[in-house]
């Protein structure tokens, strides 16, 4: 027999709630798990719903999810307090692959896309981190990274402009051996195109509407690939094949929409 594998949410206690920025909170959860940054958990609120979240940190016996308030589900997450219970199942997907290399990794984050990258940065050796947000008050985890270049759309902190522009100006292709990115998909598409121009391997964490999370329903498909199982992290060889990447995504009912419409919520 194959299996049994049991995908059921486990209820866990929230031990701490941290306000990171207006509309962004971290929930610290008592939980032990093996985890690779970029993977995700399905977070269950009984009676409310279940949605995918990356971990923003992962210690022994404790994990964090960092949530941007968007709609009904994240709103409900925001109402939780220490002592509340929350359901998790996972981790799912493939995560970023970290290899020991001679040169430097570059991390390009846009908005809430910093979340899975933060957990990744914890495991990298002195990466170049470029992190853009709409304005200074939306930057989170400010003191967490040893070295980081901020970019803000309104110039309120660091580079005045988008993370992509900052990346373009800060990138030293010769000194870099891999680029990790997460953020609004049009941004990731631009980062990828820059990497391609420089023949730099890129890993991008995609988002699609997740239902099952375990590769059975097909709802998260991106061309023939499943974001929940083949992704959410895709590297260059696959990104090249994904005609949907940066262009289109599917709504909850499977309808195709432009990535701008789909991803508008993610811009921070």
């Amino acid at each position, binding site marked *: *027999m*194959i*299996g*049994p*594998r*049991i*995908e*059921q*949410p*486990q*209820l866990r206690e929230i031990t701490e709630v941290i306000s990171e920025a207006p509309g962004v909170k971290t929930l610290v959860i008592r939980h032990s798990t093996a985890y690779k940054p970029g993977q995700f958990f*399905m977070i*269950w609120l*009984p*009676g409310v*719903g*279940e*949605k995918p979240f990356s971990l923003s940190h992962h210690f022994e016996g404790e994990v964090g999810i960092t949530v941007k308030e968007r709609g009904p589900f994240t709103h409900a997450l925001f109402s939780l307090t220490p002592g509340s*219970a929350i*359901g998790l199942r996972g981790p799912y997907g493939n995560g970023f692959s970290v290899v020991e290399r001679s040169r430097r990794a570059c991390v390009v984050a846009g908005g809430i896309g910093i979340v899975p990258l933060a957990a990744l940065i914890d495991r990298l050796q002195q990466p170049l981190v470029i992190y853009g947000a709409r304005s200074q008050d939306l930057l989170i985890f400010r003191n967490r990274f040893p070295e980081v270049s901020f970019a803000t759309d309104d110039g309120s902190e660091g580079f005045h402009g988008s993370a992509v522009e900052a990346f373009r100006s800060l990138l030293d292709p010769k000194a870099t051996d891999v680029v990790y990115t997460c953020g609004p998909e049009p941004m990731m598409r631009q980062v990828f195109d820059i990497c391609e121009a420089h023949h730099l391997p890129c890993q991008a964490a995609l988002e699609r509407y997740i*239902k*099952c*999370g*375990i*590769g*059975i*329903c*097909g*709802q998260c*498909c991106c*061309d*023939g*690939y*499943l974001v929940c*199982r083949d992704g959410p992290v895709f590297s260059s060889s696959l990104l090249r094949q994904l005609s949907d990447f940066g262009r289109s995504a*599917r*709504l*909850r*009912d*499977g*309808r*195709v929409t432009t990535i701008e419409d789909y991803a508008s919520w993610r811009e921070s």
Partner: protein
Amino acid sequence: MDLSIDLCGIKLPNPTILASGVLGVSRCSLARVASCGAGAVTTKSISLEPRSGHDNPCVVTYEAGMLNAMGYPNPGAEAAREEFAAVDQLPVPVIASAVGTEPEEFAAVAEILTALPFAATEIPVSCPHTPGFGLMGGHASTDAIRRITSLVRDKTKLPLFVKLPAGGPEVVDLAKAARDGGADGITAVNTIGPGMVINIEAARPVLGFKKGGVSGPALRPVAVRCVYDIYEAVDLPIIGVGGITTGRDAIEMMMAGARAVGIGSAVYYRGMDVFSEVCREIRTWMEDHGYESLTEIVGAAHQ
């Protein structure tokens, strides 16, 4: 060893078919599954209007199988026209799954889909967890099945499969009703139940819809028996679906009388390569046991 089969005139390179509702959201995902070795693929069920489906969680697995309450999410028949316009470019036949709440809706969807290059149409009258549809729409009676089937029959020239529920002895009457309505074949079965999994720490059903159809290993013996009974009662080709995870399971289903086998939940248990793996296991077993063609296997348990 040649595993190709003929299903109502459709040529399949092997008898494994992607079951409806699993992965079949888009032409690209169907193509991917085809590249993983499926002998045919089925779309997710398509309704006239777009449907968002039930709230998450929509799938939960337990030690003996899987429950789902997807609720037929799909972009609707109009969107399907575009999505599946070029399905004949796939290396294997593509079966369109058409659903409705009213018999007329089934027919309307089938009419739209029949204009596309699909190889066959399947109509599930048997979903156990979607209000207005299948068991919850009163479609799983002999009268309803006969009526739905004949209305759809009038609108499609494609080979027509009626997908029956996993039930008790009455499944034979349902199969006869489908035949009488003009079906060319039977797909047996859909998920059973519905069932429910409760998270006891939360004291709540896990699924957003609370209840969901049970698939996977749990279902297999009931599915095998339904196929066995239908094979004896109705002279139509059967696609056997329910809990098939290995080549042995597929052979068991074919011995019960299935000409081809649908695979759904096993995509989760073994990944998309389950299709080529099941085919490899079928071949190896046949070689080891001196079988030379699938025709010796189909219905062999009816001695």
